[in-house]
């Protein structure tokens, strides 16, 4: 069944799009990530203009994250205060990101920037995660106790002013690092059209050293706020949100997401981290690959809208 998208001004197959939503949603639910970094490249490969793909999949990220936050919220594992503080930086970052993206697009460099960011960020994070989780798996196989993470928090975290108490995360730190992290994630998220979960989770674990139980729920909460702002900004500034496309994707997404959350209980955390690391690494390498492959046609038409 084909349907015409009013903003993208082209017709797409509903089942294909809904199916994409289900698959990405399933992976999101399974691994606790937004899944935007997987969806954008696929949408673009299917012929959706990149700016519209990026803006419309925000609906999918928003829906799956909202649904997950509600599930985590029931288990009281969301630090709303930490999430809110990070979102302050996140919103500023998203505003800056949407503007930067707009300029890059007018200069014809947006897709290039996206490819570079994917390669660098996903490549690095995927590689690190893979390395770490494989080591953990091997140690478990050899019957050794899990490596204890270095719990010592960096000193500068405590030297900064404006301290605040975050009971759920088990922290008493300055608000500056969370705001700064939020800003960077918001900026990159808007540039890459992703929620930024794969960036914020490591930042929470390794930089802020938050209590592990609060990390995923809190990151999802901050993603909800940042994505919400990004989506409104994209709609207002760039008119690139296609409500019909967003709707089809998110219907598939929420169903897939809930299935993924159920499936997640069947696997061990270490094994899932290895798989997630491989997926992130592959997504990064695949996008980065386009930088090195001679283009089929040396010329490309750049979108004029926005």
């Amino acid at each position, binding site marked *: 069944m*084909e*349907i*015409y998208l*009013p*903003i993208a*001004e*082209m*017709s797409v197959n509903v089942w294909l799009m809904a199916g994409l939503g289900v698959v990405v949603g399933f992976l999101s639910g399974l691994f606790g990530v937004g899944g935007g970094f997987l969806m954008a490249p696929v949408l673009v490969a299917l012929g959706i203009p990149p700016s519209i793909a990026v803006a419309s999949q*925000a*609906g999918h990220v*928003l*829906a*799956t*994250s*909202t*649904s*997950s936050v*509600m*599930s985590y919220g029931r288990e009281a594992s969301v630090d709303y205060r930490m999430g809110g503080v990070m979102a302050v930086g996140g919103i500023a970052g998203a*505003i800056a990101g949407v*503007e930067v993206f707009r*300029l890059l697009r*007018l*200069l*014809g460099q947006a897709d*290039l920037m996206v490819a570079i960011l994917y390669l660098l960020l996903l490549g690095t994070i995927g590689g690190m995660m893979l390395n770490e989780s494989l080591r953990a798996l091997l140690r478990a196989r050899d019957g050794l106790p899990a490596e204890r993470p270095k719990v010592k928090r960096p000193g500068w975290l405590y030297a900064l002013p404006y301290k605040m108490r975050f009971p759920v995360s088990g922290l008493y730190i300055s608000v500056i690092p969370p705001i700064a992290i939020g800003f960077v994630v918001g900026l990159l998220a808007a540039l890459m059209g992703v929620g930024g979960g794969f960036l914020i989770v490591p930042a929470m674990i390794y930089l802020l050293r938050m209590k592990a139980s609060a990390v995923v729920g809190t990151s999802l909460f901050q993603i*909800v706020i940042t994505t*919400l702002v990004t*989506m*409104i*900004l*994209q*709609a*207002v*500034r760039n*008119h690139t*949100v296609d*409500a*019909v496309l*967003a*709707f089809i994707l*998110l*219907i598939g997404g*929420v169903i897939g997401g*809930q299935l993924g959350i159920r499936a997640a209980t069947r696997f061990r955390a270490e094994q899932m981290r290895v798989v997630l690391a491989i997926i992130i690494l592959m997504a990064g390498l695949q996008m980065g690959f386009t*930088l*090195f*492959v*001679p*283009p089929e*046609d*040396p*010329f*490309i*038409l*750049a*979108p*004029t*809208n*926005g």
Partner: protein
Amino acid sequence: MVAASLPPDVTAPAPSVPYIETQPAAGVSADLLSTDLTQNRIEVSSSFQGAKVILYGAVFQPEDQPSDVVVIIRGPQASMRLIRKVKAGAVWLNSRPVVFEGAPGYYMAASSQPLDRITDFSHRRLLGLGLDYIAMDTSRENKVVTRYGVKDVVVNGIEDDYLDWRRAVIRLKSKAGLYNDNPLGVRFVDKNLFRAEVTLPSEAPIGDYTAEVWLFRDGQPVGYSEKKLTVEKVGFERFVYTVAHRHAWLYGLACVFMSMGMGALASRLFRRG
């Protein structure tokens, strides 16, 4: 809000003007041709997957003279931005975009036989007949301008490569099914009755189209007729597009509520289920 201080958006649909001012030259008559389209309004609804329109017409000629018909369909004109991939070391980077102006968003040239057999180069060029003669422009002199609020956009500066770029525009548009040369697209179904098929893909731009029909005799244009064709969104598609552009804040908020609402609903349904 940041939004208020920045230049206005350029997404509003450009007013569509037929590109060439077709001033029928001396000796061209409007009485020799009578044409019409099977539809002069194409409605784009959610089930739109492209459309096919038939242009048909009759030639009135007192005596049996061999004549040729050329049909040119032009879609709404929109500026285009083209980027060239350039190799820097091992990596392929993007050049700065070059802006092409005046090219139609859709173009079809159908004729009763190949254009070069119908008329000479100067007529083809003057009247914009055939893909090779679509008028489009990067402005003549080297100009660096501020466009859409971005400084230093190169509008030209490709003088030497102009043909490469131009050919690229046509190649890319043809690939998307938006530009089309059909040297046998006009078929005489009867002695003086002809028809041509116009195929619009689902990506065809929204706006006003013109169908120009030229009658040639001995290489000279002798008859001309013009019809309008409108492609417009209707119903839900139109509603969504209008709201997205006129009430962007409301639209953005609605999208957010829809997304979060569906997420919340799913979470609730699955918990109980």
